């Protein structure tokens, strides 16, 4: 049996369904919209669980709002395809910042370390290949500190703290 035609039509249908499930597109024609939304929500729940497992401090700092915030963030944005859960975490933290949610110093610190070793790309997070210098301000309970990071990929990575 020649399956190339079937493959072509299946490719279109699977892509259409996938967009509805992970990228906020409307439910494809002929589908039960409520069921598609239930599955989309299930996929976001799983994403949220994975994030909470790997970034427990972030989930804890949002408390009971973690789940609802994550769903708001993830509804129209699919998970980054490279960089795994850290890439999703970087985007989620960025989203929280843009929505006026205060990020704890511990999370800012951890994000700084991830972004020193990796760069944000359109499809997620990729390991740095070029040297970089980054700085960020940490407002902790004991006052303001500045972190300065220097990285030479594969050779050297240092973080200096300035201030108390």
């Amino acid at each position, binding site marked *: *049996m020649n399956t190339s035609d079937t493959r*072509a039509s*299946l490719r279109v249908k699977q*892509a259409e369904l996938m*967009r509805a499930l*992970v990228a906020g597109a409307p439910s494809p024609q002929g589908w039960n919209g409520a069921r598609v939304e239930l*599955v989309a929500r299930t*996929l976001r729940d*799983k994403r949220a669980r994975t994030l909470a497992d790997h970034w427990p401090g972030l989930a804890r700092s949002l408390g009971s709002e973690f789940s609802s915030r994550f769903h708001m963030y993830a509804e129209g944005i699919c*998970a980054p395809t490279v960089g795994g859960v850290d890439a999703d975490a970087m985007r989620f933290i960025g989203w929280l910042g843009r929505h006026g949610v205060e990020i704890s110093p511990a999370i800012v610190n951890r994000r700084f370390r991830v972004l020193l070793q990796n760069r944000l790309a359109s499809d997620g997070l990729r390991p740095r290949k070029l040297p970089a210098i980054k700085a960020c301000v940490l407002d902790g309970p004991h006052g303001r500190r500045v972190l300065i990071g220097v990285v030479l990929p594969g050779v050297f990575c240092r973080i200096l703290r300035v201030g108390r």
Partner: protein
Amino acid sequence: MRRMWRFAVTPKPGLGLGIGWRRELAVLIDRIACGDEPDAPRLGFVEIIAEDFDPRRLEPAIERLMGLGVRVIPHGVGLSLGSADRPDPRRIEHLAKLAERVKAPLVSEHAAFVRAGGLESGHLLPPPQTREMAEILAENIRAARSMLPVPLAIENISCLFDWPESNLGESEFLTLVLDRADAPLLLDVENVYANARNRGHPAIDRLLEMPLERTAYVHLGGGVEVDGVYHDTHTEPVPQAVVSLLRRLGEARPELAEVGVMVERDGQFPTFAATIAELSDVARAMARSGGEP
């Protein structure tokens, strides 16, 4: 009572009792394999998530288990055999290298797709259950198998939806796929249970009509019900209903007595004692179904 480890003198000896290797379980698994947990049943194999391991830098913990005589089965979650596109040769090659590295007797993947249109679902999704799809899936399985050094067992998944064009039952579809691909079955009893429960079908009927003669080994897991829908999350203990299905499976098909059975847990990990109790429970169900009076 603990006479469940009878290895068949056949080309494919039984795998025994297994568990999905996860970092959170590594210490416990190591203790069981070493015999440091007197209450634990003997561990025959572990399954590792293929995408999480690098064949060039195998975890010392896995190497150690191999040295202790525990067999290791790489289990893929990213081949997307149910996609419209043929599986990525680089992914198959990774699985092949890993299989060689851990001296696996076989590897496994799912009758599912996880990517389409450049997007990833992060979760196993069912392809449409039609004859045309069965043909594509079988082609993809054969393509993967041709690059692998060992058999590729295919797992039935839990489905939260059906495609509007699906016109075959789950077991009918899977039988067709595995016949066409000539592939063994990784039978997930909890996935059969989940689908039957969500569709309001009797689980034992759905289980017994699966292509059981192809079974290579068995998965058991646990999920949660939310708003009337059972979700296969692997964050809960194996439900008693699923353990009982395993027992009934062995009674109905005694030839499956030598088949390996393993427990999967992916989150909300319980205490060592609770995990050991669960493994013992499964081992007892295996032994009972193995023809004891």
